[in-house]
């Protein structure tokens, strides 16, 4: 079950690398977060009550953050599509290369199934790729969330899971950061008339 959810998450993640529309990318990240939440819930029997709560919060996070991002997109409609400087196929090729190299370099994590570790590392690479290669501010946020999902997958896969304080605290911090980032996105849109991070180019030395 967890393997299926993990690789489903990777597939959703690769989708965020190539899709054009921000709303589609947000739906994909929502699906990915939900898949990882379901994987965590599937692991919950036999583990502590705190782990069960943390798994539940992961599912709630999938809904809440997707809703927040979708609301932001609806409030800040773009007059023209924000085109990335890099062609979608090239983005995909770069991402797959990064995944391959990272998985070759990183040794096995104790107590984590190799398959799950590979999927976690892949998600973090995908997140970095979306974050670096996409220009729309909302898509850069999606990149951060994909990477965070990779981290959540690794955390729940450890025998017993990460300490609940860290899991719940990290989710709280992530929600705080995403909320602040959405406030920034709204303000950037209000000032520049677009959520295109490439327009933020005044600070150069």
């Amino acid at each position, binding site marked *: 079950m967890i393997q299926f959810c993990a690789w489903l998450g990777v597939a959703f993640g690769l989708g965020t690398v190539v899709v054009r529309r921000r709303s589609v990318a947000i739906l994909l990240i929502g699906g990915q977060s939900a898949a990882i939440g379901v994987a965590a819930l599937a692991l919950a029997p036999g583990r502590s009550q705190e782990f069960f709560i943390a798994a539940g919060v992961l599912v709630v996070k999938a809904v809440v953050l997707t809703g927040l991002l979708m609301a932001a997109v609806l409030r800040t409609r773009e007059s023209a599509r924000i085109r990335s400087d890099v062609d979608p196929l090239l983005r995909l090729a770069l991402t797959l290369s990064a995944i391959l190299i990272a998985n070759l370099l990183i040794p096995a994590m104790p107590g984590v199934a190799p398959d799950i570790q590979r999927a976690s590392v892949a998600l973090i690479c995908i997140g970095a790729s979306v974050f670096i290669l996409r220009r729309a*501010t909302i898509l850069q946020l999606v990149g951060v969330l994909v990477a965070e999902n990779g981290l959540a997958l690794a*955390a729940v896969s450890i025998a*017993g899971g*990460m300490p609940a304080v*860290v899991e719940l*605290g990290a989710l709280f911090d992530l929600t705080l950061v995403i909320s602040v980032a959405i406030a920034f996105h709204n303000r950037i849109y209000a000032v520049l008339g677009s959520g295109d991070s490439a327009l*933020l180019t005044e600070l150069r030395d």
Partner: protein
Amino acid sequence: MLYSQNSVIDLVGALSPLLALAGAAVIPLAPPSLTHRLNRLFAVVVATAALGTAVAGAAGGQSQAGWIQLDPFGSVFLLVNGLIGGVSAFVSPVYLAHEQRGLFASGSRWYYLGLYLFWAALLAIPLAANLGVAWLLIETTTGASALLVAYSGKRRALEAGWKYLLLTTFGLTVALLGIVFLYAAVAPRGDGLSTLDWSALRAAAPALPHETTVVALVLIIGGLAAKIGWAPVHHWLPDAHSEAPAPVSAMLSGALLPSVMLIAWRVQAAISPASGAGTSRTLFVAFGLTSLAVAVPFLWRPMAIKRLLAYSSLEHVGILALGIGFDQPLAFAGVILHVWGHALAKSLGFYATMPIFRLQPTAVRRPAAGIARLSPDTGTALGVSILSLSGLPPSPLFFSELFILLGGMTAHQYAVVAAAAVMLALGFIGLAHQLLEALLGRPRRDVLDGAARSRIRALSLAAGAGLVALSLLAYYLPGSNFLQAFTRAAS
């Protein structure tokens, strides 16, 4: 008996962050006529509590209760966070009085909410007894301080805040992956939060697998580097420090960067038996040299004064990284002195930009010129700040840099010491040249706010006295009992 001792440690340790949180709750809700007065009251109370806790931690050896740890190691940084946070809160009304536009409609309330939340997290970081909790606190600083960076609401401030928010969040994600790696190695059956206590990590380190620990160390230090602002992952630093309100810039540079560095240092000290001392030292030295190499050319370029101070921060976090990487008691004495001296001198420089921007509004974007002619008091503040930062004797930063370089010689890192010495000399010349232009160049505008003049004079006197005291301390610190206790915790 043990329970009561732990309760006292919990109470003392948590006091200053809790008081700062109370400030965050009370000040924004107060009637507008009371906001600034309440802020000044909380600034004094929180800073006093933090300084008291720092002195208790410095004098009392290591003690831990729950998530809180008091020790000389953390006290060095808590002292800075208490002092710089307190002064920044205290001078904030001066900034707010002259800031016309804001990111928020009810500007000062949001400003104080962000400032006190940021300060509370900063005060808690040096007290955190646990790697997981420390990471959470560092991440908490991001949200609050990003809003403060963009407080003016101007386009450049938004750009700086956006970069800061995303780059540091991504860096911290990488650091958390390292923590997951480390936790999987330390507690393969998931033994709970306490396995990430500094003391537990130290105890477990000799038995940890080398390869996994090296990966964890690289991910944690590399991820935290993005928040510390070490080159080459420093891109947010010059932008955020130059666009934030001056009191916030002082906190970012003087308090946040060293606090996050403390956590990187604690990780290195805890797990180096497994990762190999050479690996961790190499990491710090590499970040140190790279930061110096990136910063120094910018210190030669004419640029706006806050941006110059920001690049100077990059240079100084590089020096601190070298001091940690040399891993010698004398270098540690240099690091202690440098953290304190840099915080005082840099914050004075940022506070001085408030009257400078009123004297010479174009200095927000262009190099300042003729400040000493327009206002001798403001010129003195800027002069004391930049000459101290450049390492001109008898600045405490001269002694701290000397100690760090001598520590490097003791560690037989001759090539690194030589390269660092050359870059420090170049940095000194660059900063001194910029200072001469800023103080004695031809002034562009001649308008002076008298109230600002008297405040900056008081700040200059206080910071100057502090810097002289630190220079005197340089004679006593090497070989002191305090340094021995610090070194035991840090290496």
